[in-house]
């Protein structure tokens, strides 16, 4: 097992700069998830760590060794691909042992390692089958098994669950988590699925346009996003953004939302916002911080009620997502199942300013 360090990592394809100077240090045993929209450079970073792409600039270190020019096979990494990349003509056991056989490991040792990995992943009874005789989830397990038997210093996962259906994805997520708890191998995992990022990661690295927007624990990136991009990317449905103005009213610092209510800011937030008094900012409020008015658990004293016109209602069983208009903007709220709003209805929703994020529109940084 080893640390992975990326220093000012740059990758250019012809004229396109895919990765624009990334610094990231991944300590031993950590599970890091690179997340971001398509084309943000996350897979390119992973492939550079694997040695499948040349490094245009900067350094990659695995352990103490600079590996920029080390071929993939000598980096002591193992990779799990999105399309499994199993050898179709080999059995499960042969697929898993291919790397060991190429390295001329003793047969008995190969057998033991394959058996152990198969036991861990629950595929011991599939060892004689070929990939085409397996389901998607089983194939992905085999792909992971192939990674495990190598006993690598670093695991690399490239969107491994994207080809599975939603239910299986949930199961495999748990499996991967269990695997990491068991093996504690340093892991770099690429996904565009924020649920995977939040649930699996020790640390989430949010990337955009070839740069790291923020690296932090799942809790940090969700509750304390540093940039507008991170605030908008993490969370589903996405955070609501709308213009607001900072004013002083009755001795309190208030964020007055465009066409919406004036939200008194909590003390800490107010201190940071005060220098922007009279200026326009962007307010970010997650759907769960706009709740139904009726009592229950959500209605605490700091909420500010406001009448809105319901646009679209999405009942999801355990909650209901409500889209409504505020001025020109369409916003989204998460309400309990006790209320049954219907489209076109006028109703009162409560805005909770305690989790309000204020964003400077010039820098796109969260205050």
């Amino acid at each position, binding site marked *: 097992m080893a640390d992975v360090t990326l220093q000012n990592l740059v990758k250019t394809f012809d004229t396109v700069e895919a990765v624009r100077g990334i610094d990231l240090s991944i300590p031993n045993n950590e599970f890091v998830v690179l997340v971001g929209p398509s084309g943000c450079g996350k897979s390119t970073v992973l492939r550079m760590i*694997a*040695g*499948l792409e040349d490094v245009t600039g900067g350094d990659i270190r695995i352990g103490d060794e600079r590996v920029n020019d080390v*071929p*993939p*096979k000598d980096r002591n*990494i*193992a*990779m799990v*691909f*999105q*399309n499994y*990349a*199993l*050898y*179709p*003509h080999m059995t499960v056991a042969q697929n898993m042992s*291919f*790397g060991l056989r*190429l*390295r001329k490991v003793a047969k008995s040792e190969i057998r033991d390692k394959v058996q152990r990995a198969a036991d861990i992943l629950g595929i011991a009874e599939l060892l004689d*089958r*070929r990939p*085409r*005789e397996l389901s998607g989830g089983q194939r992905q397990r085999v792909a992971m098994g*192939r990674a495990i038997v*190598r006993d690598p210093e670093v695991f690399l996962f490239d969107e491994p669950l994207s080809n599975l259906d939603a239910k299986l994805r949930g199961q495999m997520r748990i499996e991967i988590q269990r695997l990491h708890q068991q093996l504690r191998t340093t892991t770099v995992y690429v996904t565009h699925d924020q649920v995977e990022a939040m649930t699996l990661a020790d640390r989430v690295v949010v990337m955009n346009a070839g740069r790291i927007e923020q690296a932090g624990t799942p809790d940090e990136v969700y509750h304390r996003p540093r940039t507008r991009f991170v605030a908008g990317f993490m969370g589903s449905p996405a955070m609501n953004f709308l213009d607001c103005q900072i004013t002083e009213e009755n001795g309190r610092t208030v964020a007055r939302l465009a066409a919406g209510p004036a939200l008194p800011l909590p003390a800490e937030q107010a201190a940071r916002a005060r220098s922007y008094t009279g200026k326009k900012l962007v307010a970010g409020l997650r759907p769960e911080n706009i709740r139904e008015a009726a009592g229950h658990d959500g209605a605490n004293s700091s909420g500010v009620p406001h009448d809105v016109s319901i646009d679209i209602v999405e009942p999801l069983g355990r909650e209901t997502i409500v889209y409504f208009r505020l001025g020109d903007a369409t916003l989204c709220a998460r309400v309990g199942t006790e209320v049954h709003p219907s489209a076109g209805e006028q109703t009162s929703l409560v805005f909770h300013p305690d989790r309000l994020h204020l964003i400077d529109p010039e820098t796109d940084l969260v205050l």
Partner: protein
Amino acid sequence: MTAIPFKTAPSLRSNRRWALIAAYACLGIFVVFFLFPPYYMLVTSLKTNAEIAELASNPWIVTDGVTLGHYEHLLTESSFPRFFLNTTIVTVIVVAITMVISVLAAYSLARLRFWGSGVLATGVFLTYLVPDTLLFIPLFKIVGWLGLLDTYWSLVLVYPTLTVPFCTWIMIGYFGSIPRELDEAALIDGANHMQMLLKVFIPVALPGLIAATIFAFTVAWANFLYPLAYIYSESEMVLTVGTVTTLIKGDVFHWGGLMAGALLAAAPPVILYAFLMDYYIAGLTSGATKG
């Protein structure tokens, strides 16, 4: 509500029946058309010379008794076994040379992206489009210069100019269809290019390899023009040219022997096709249905 399935089901069924009838009718015509020459060869080869020469006899069946005389003559008193051996030697070597060159070439053109590889891949195919009737004169000069005229080694040298471009093209297609992630997985597993080719690419592209082998075999076994142009001694001849030059004496056609020779010469490709086609189809359809 229920009227719809009742109405569509019979029409679907009759639709299918008509499609099947049409398919069998077309296949039937096709089979008769293509099996007629071998049947005629077989029947003629089993007739006596007298029956073949008799204008009044029925050409479609043997009436005066079956004879194996033509086969006996061919196998014991003519150079036919020699032609057969020569053809086999030439074909085996040509197929081997072709597969080695075209597999290596296709792998590098499909996977090792290097400067000009795209142009080169197209160029390889373009050379195949030059007809051999244009090539045999310049090739004659080369063969003569190498001192290979009137030996079957000239064919070993010349046939790959026909087989390699096409086989390379087929293999580029097959190798190109292998997902790139498979090479990357093999690369991480520690395979070098040779191991990747031998342990991953060739087994995965086996149907393509077999298709290319069949093509190379057919060309080498059945080419007529080159042996006609380059070989004159009976001991060096191959089946295509040897059979007709030794069994047609001036304006006398030994039809019985010619037909027997043609049938025997056609047997190896037929056997090979029959054997490999099963394998070929199995390879193509593997994984198409859920196991």
